[in-house]
């Protein structure tokens, strides 16, 4: 299964992935319209300092603690992709408590959100990958 | 309007050739006939022939065929010749006045041998000396143009359709073991006798159909070695290339063909051992002598003919046989005109040299 991977050697910490993610999942067709004057809730996050940066998003674990720990059954694994049914999620954040990578976060409605590889939006391929100016984020089989 | 030599003029053409492997002599009648079905491949602005083995009685002398604009240039040239050569015979080339051929210049023929004293003074071999002399006359003596300079062979050319040119020069009266012919279709010239083909240097003569795209690359390279491409024709430069490669670099005709129509790198890559090295070497060393663009040529030389097409075979050329004779022409019709019963007719592949030699001792 293809997953999103980051190579910190090439990550510039420009944070474009976060904005591209937020935009791709906004359901809107214009980035300015989607993000201007708004706090963004990306599903991928840059970590690091001035010298080292890398982006983190869901690893789509083969034995996912988040799915097993979800109290509502909102998280599930489908063909290897861990997805969340935000209609079901009540925002208990147990998933955040158990994700070893810190890849699940709260969205603007306080329910959990996570990278779903842009399978549910119209990006085509993960927007973070598509928009990364230095190929630091790749979408591939490993 | 610029004349031949002042400007490069592309042209289409017809070529034809015949050779007897046994060295049997043929009159020029048959080769003239071969040009008739290809009439439309010429436009009346140039035709010519070369015959080999036609001067048996003077076979040890260089036969110079020279056009003169007038007697002034003839006198100048003759006095130059006298200084350098022993002239055993000087005469007008016999012609037959026909209405199709007009504006006839003075056409002379000399059988000459270089003076031994001159050769030893200049420390030159005979052929180099003769070639230089020809170049010198053509470059420096205004109104004189040597268009044939080999031994026991001769070039006959004029402005007109080839079949008329053949009659004009009374080629039915000559006998040779091989003949080549050319009909020209220049696109932009008032026509000049010297510009007609074959083009010859020493015993090499070339008839050529095509317009090569490598011309200036070839010309600028070959001119490094003392050649001057005054006519700015493909035939001229190809003749010089062959002279350079065969006479001066000592390549065989096959090797020469592998320079002029070098195999593609992809073909060379597939060769093995020495051959691969040789092809690579030849192509690398003489890269500027690779001829591209359409051409089909027949090279005449003492004792043989070589036919060669460009690598992509962008010009037609067929070969046929009958008994001891081999025929080469732009069109099969021309071969049929010479020998209706010709067999083994085939089109040589692009870059494939067809070399036919007269049996050793038969010429």
């Amino acid at each position, binding site marked *: 299964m293809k997953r999103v991977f980051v190579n*910190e050697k090439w990550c510039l910490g420009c944070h474009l992935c976060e904005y591209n993610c937020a935009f791709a999942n906004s359901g809107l067709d214009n980035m300015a319209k989607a993000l201007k004057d708004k706090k963004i809730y990306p599903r991928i996050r840059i970590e690091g300092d001035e010298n080292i940066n*890398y982006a983190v998003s869901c690893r789509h674990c083969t034995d996912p603690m988040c799915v097993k720990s979800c109290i509502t059954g909102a998280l599930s694994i489908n063909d290897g992709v861990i997805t969340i049914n935000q*209609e079901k999620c009540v925002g208990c954040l147990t998933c955040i408590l158990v*994700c070893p990578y810190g890849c699940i976060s709260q969205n603007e409605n306080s329910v959990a959100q996570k990278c779903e590889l842009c399978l549910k939006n119209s990006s085509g391929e993960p927007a973070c990958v598509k928009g990364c100016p230095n190929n630091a984020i790749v979408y591939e089989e490993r | 309007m610029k004349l031949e030599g002042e400007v490069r003029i592309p042209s289409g053409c017809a070529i034809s050739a015949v050779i007897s492997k046994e060295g049997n002599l043929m009159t020029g009648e048959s080769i003239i006939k071969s040009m008739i079905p290809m009439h439309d491949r010429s436009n009346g602005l140039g035709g010519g022939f070369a015959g080999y083995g036609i001067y048996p009685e003077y076979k040890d002398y260089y036969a110079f065929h020279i056009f003169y604009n007038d007697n002034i240039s003839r006198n100048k040239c003759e006095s130059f010749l006298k200084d350098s050569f022993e002239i055993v015979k000087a005469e007008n080339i016999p012609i037959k006045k026909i209405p199709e051929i007009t504006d006839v210049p003075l056409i002379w023929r000399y059988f000459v041998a270089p003076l031994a004293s001159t050769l030893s003074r200049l420390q030159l071999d005979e052929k180099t000396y003769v070639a230089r002399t020809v170049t010198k006359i053509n470059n420096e003596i205004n109104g004189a143009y040597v268009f044939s300079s080999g031994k026991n062979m001769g070039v006959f050319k004029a402005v007109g359709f080839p079949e008329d040119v053949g009659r004009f020069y009374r080629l039915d009266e000559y006998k040779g073991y091989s003949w080549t012919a050319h009909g020209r279709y220049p696109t932009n010239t008032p026509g000049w006798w010297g510009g007609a083909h074959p083009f010859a240097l020493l015993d090499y003569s070339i008839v050529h159909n095509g317009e090569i795209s490598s011309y200036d690359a070839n010309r600028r390279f070959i001119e490094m070695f003392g050649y001057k491409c005054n006519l700015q024709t493909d035939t001229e430069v190809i003749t010089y290339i062959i002279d350079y490669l065969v006479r001066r670099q000592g390549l065989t005709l096959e090797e020469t063909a592998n320079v002029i129509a070098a195999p593609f790198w992809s073909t060379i890559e597939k060769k093995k051992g020495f051959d691969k090295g040789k092809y690579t070497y030849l192509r690398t060393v003489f890269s500027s002598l690779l001829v591209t663009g359409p051409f089909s040529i027949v090279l005449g030389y003492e004792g043989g003919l070589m036919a060669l097409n460009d690598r992509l075979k962008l010009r037609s050329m067929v070969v046929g046989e009958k008994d001891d004779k081999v025929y080469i022409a732009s069109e099969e019709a021309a071969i049929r005109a010479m020998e209706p019963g010709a067999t083994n007719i085939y089109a040589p592949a692009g870059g494939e040299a067809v070399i036919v030699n007269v049996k050793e001792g038969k010429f």
Partner: protein
Amino acid sequence: MSKYVIIGNSTAAAGCIEGIRSVDNSGEITVVSGENHFVYSRPLISYYLEEKTDLQRMKYRPDDFYEKNKCNVLYGVKAEKIDKEKSEVYLDNGEKLSYEKLMIATGSSPFVPPFKGLDTVENKFSFMTIDDALAIEKTVDENSKVLIVGAGLIGLKCAEGLLEKVGKISVCDLADRVLSSIFDDECAKIMQNHLEEKGIEFLLGDSAEEFNGNTAKMMSGKDVEFDVLILAVGVRSNIAIAKEIGIDTNRAILVDNAMKTSLENIYSAGDCTEYVDFSSNSKKVMAILPNAYLQGNTAGKNMAGESAVFDNAIPMNSIGFFGLHAMSAGSYFDEKDGGKCYIEKGERHIKKLFVKDGVLSGFIIIGDVSKAGIYTNLIRNKTELSEIDFETIKKSPTLFAFSKENRGKMLGGVV
């Protein structure tokens, strides 16, 4: 064809079913469900009251769950007795089920202390099941005064669920702080302040002693008037059926890390079990949903013939009240236990990291809980803190604290 019987139909049971089916697709599975409901998420009952979810969305698994997993579910039926010799389970409808492998996932029940005069209270409820929630919902109105006995998780979630629906909520607890099982004083105070700001009244270190109709008489002597009484004092594991046939029990059924009980072919999982807390290396009842699932799932795999273990269970909780989130995990060792605590604190937030023997043993966070799973993972993996940049990770959980090489492993391959 194997025969599996599962007593209980909640999270551990669902985990068990999925565990079995990940190994054995054909064995016969029978589920004995005391409650007359499709498997649902118990912790959601407070969210139901709060109208953050509904009965459909509360279902723990999709509607075709049993069908897909080929389970025969007996609703509204209770297991009364196990015959370990015959490998049979007797049901309260007179039928019996024979099993090859048995799962006891009986969960727990509300513990109701023997209050004096409790029978005089008209509207009294526990808060454990969907039926409890439905009954409470029917009873309360916007003028109701609600008294909740117990300031633990259940009591406070119930309070959160009801606050918008009722006139007043008071919560009493014998303990002197809220959420005493997961918070220390300092943390509890922050949460209590937050809840009080939202309008919940607390009576701590005090509890009802006696009831008289709509009045609770407190130990302090105070009288508290109420319309609705909710008893959320605590829960007790349902172990009677196990104990009866000699399965080893303590406060709950004892299981090993394969979720086997002391009897052959009998497994147990969920709130009815007691097992090792990895963070303190002591046996505990860790009645939390994730562990129930993980236990059930492990048991299911083993029942179907695999050898799975669940050996890094830790207590943990993620709870939020009115937008303020709190998380806790592992064990808290203070200095007298040989531990060390790093504290970062503000008026409305706090973070405590407990370190013992060079590893993180537990933490409590109130406030910004993002990426807390990275801490949890440190506990679960017993990661040597000397191998990471603890100064960095103390400030906020980040993979940046790991060595480049380890980070590469975490982010660079399939995990």
